[in-house]
């Protein structure tokens, strides 16, 4: 019974992405999508990849990291520099997937370098270290020549498009969903729930913490490559501390450990400020009010009952599981 529900939830996540993609294709083909709307597609996908991957560390592993933008920038610069180097040797269709791999693996490599010393420690050192990492990466990029320094990196081929973006988003969501359902995902969640018991049950805690951290960084790097190939200039300032916090907000609003929630939050919170752009003066005020409202709705008791009423499927499940629990308890007597 439970199995079916798990499956359903995961397919809803996939469906959201496929439907968004289908809608984009139809609107672009029929010419109903404005230029502005088209320009949103890649950034929305980037946002989803960032939020879903960060959810793996923050939601499933239960470790606060504040350097997701740092891994994104490592991926962006590695991917862009690679694409520029091979620009005249390879066609875009070969170059871009390779750039994605280069960017993802570079970010993963950095996460190993940070993760190996830090994740074997018992305390919550990861937040501090990843925060510092993001800032250090930023200063290094600003001070190097190969990255274009403070002026930013120009001349990257514009290989990103919405088809690639949606494909990579789907890959990210499928990989992370499958991972969290598997034995590895179980180990990761067990460490979150009770590290000491996980260790005593034979789980190699450092290994699985590292696994979650590195996979999340890989996808942050992929998002960075998409980003770097979508704009004519990549500048280090984009990937600062604020960007990391912004991604964290998406994860928290969507719900820790909820992949579907991350997808929805990442989409809505990209669209909202864009739509509000016309109301220049009030934009940030409305945006903050909406954020606060979502926070309250997500956390308050009264609202959660309203939310449950709206979520029919969940209501059914609750009804069902309570009935079952009742029976189980009766059996116990």
């Amino acid at each position, binding site marked *: *019974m*439970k199995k079916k529900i798990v499956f359903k939830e995961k397919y809803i996540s996939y469906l959201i992405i496929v439907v968004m993609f289908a809608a984009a294709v139809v609107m672009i083909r029929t010419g109903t999508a404005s230029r502005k709307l088209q320009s949103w597609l890649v950034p929305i996908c980037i946002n989803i990849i960032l939020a879903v991957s960060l959810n793996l560390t923050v939601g499933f592993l239960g470790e606060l990291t504040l350097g997701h933008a740092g891994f994104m920038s490592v991926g962006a610069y590695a991917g862009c520099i690679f694409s520029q180097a091979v620009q005249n040797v390879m066609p875009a269709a070969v170059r871009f997937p390779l750039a994605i791999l280069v960017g993802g693996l570079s970010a993963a490599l950095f996460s190993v370098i940070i993760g190996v010393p830090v994740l074997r420690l018992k305390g919550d050192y990861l937040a501090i270290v990843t925060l510092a990492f993001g800032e250090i990466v930023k200063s290094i990029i600003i001070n190097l020549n190969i990255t274009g320094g403070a002026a930013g990196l120009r001349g990257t081929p514009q290989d990103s498009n919405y088809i690639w973006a949606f494909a990579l988003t789907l890959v990210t969501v499928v*990989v992370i969903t*499958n*991972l969290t359902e*598997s*034995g*590895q*995902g*179980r*180990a990761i*969640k*067990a460490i*979150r*729930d*009770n590290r*000491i*018991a*996980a*260790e*005593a*049950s*034979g*789980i*190699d*805690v450092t290994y699985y913490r590292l*696994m979650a951290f590195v996979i999340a960084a890989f996808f942050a790097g992929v998002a960075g490559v998409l980003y770097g190939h979508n704009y004519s200039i990549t500048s280090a300032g984009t990937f600062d501390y604020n960007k990391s916090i912004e991604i964290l907000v998406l994860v928290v609003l969507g719900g820790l450990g909820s992949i579907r929630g991350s997808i929805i939050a990442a989409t809505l919170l990209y669209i909202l400020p864009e739509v509000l752009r016309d109301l220049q003066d009030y934009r940030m005020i409305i945006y903050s009010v909406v954020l606060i409202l979502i926070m309250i709705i997500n956390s308050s008791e009264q609202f959660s009952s309203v939310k449950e009423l709206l979520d029919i499927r969940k209501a059914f499940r609750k009804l069902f*599981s309570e009935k*079952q*629990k009742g*029976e*189980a*308890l009766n*059996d*116990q007597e």
Partner: protein
Amino acid sequence: MIRNNDVKMVPLPSNAIVPERDVDKPPVLSVHQLGIDFGGLTAVDNFNFIMGRTEIGGLIGPNGAGKTTVFNLLTNVYQPTRGTILLDGVNTSGKSVSQVSRMGIARTFQNIRLFDRMSVIDNVKIGLHNRYDSNLLSSVLHTPGYFRHEKQADEKAMELLSFFDMQDYAQHDAGSLPYGAQRRIEIVRALATEPKVLLLDEPAAGMNPSETEELAENIRRIRDTFGIAIVLIEHDMNLVMGVCEGIAVLNYGRIIAKGTPDEIKSNPDVIEAYLGKQEDR
């Protein structure tokens, strides 16, 4: 009523005692001169302990005597200041907690430690983790091999849960269950790691007499079915005297008495440790 054992305990050359049926086999656990200091405080000292392969042993003593600390030493949560631990003849010194678990020591905790937000069956599957899990690639791709492993783990987990009549709880969140059920899930999860030695830290705490009686039968059933050794820390003397074959009594971190339940019951040092000196009473 918890029924008593009728087992003959025989001395080894080291003058530890083990059940007669285990005497020809090498002991599963052999602890020599174990000790640990926390700063200036010597929490455990001079701890010598032998467990027969299928023995049910008891570790008792007043609050703060160092019983849980001994379990933490046996599972390498703490590094001992002195002494050695041989698990089935292998020194566990320098191994990590998870390695020791894989070598064959499983435990439950005095304060229940479950994976609260995971289902009961997933809690048990964590115990099975090192036997049934597929590699990262097949997990991420959900290959046929992945589904096969999951199915095997599910079946094994259900089998273990049904051993305690817990199969109906399988899909519930572990954290939502009543206390007694949580204690049992902890034991199932520990058994899932296929231990040679099972350490139970106050498993009867918070249980009523009938639950405790059921626990006593379950402890015997575990030993008979899985053929493993069990060490029991418990304050409930009926339980300890009923199920344990050999008992060690700790006071201020040192063993003050060892023997069969009958010997322990009549030992003046033990009575003094529990009730205070004659003139204090």
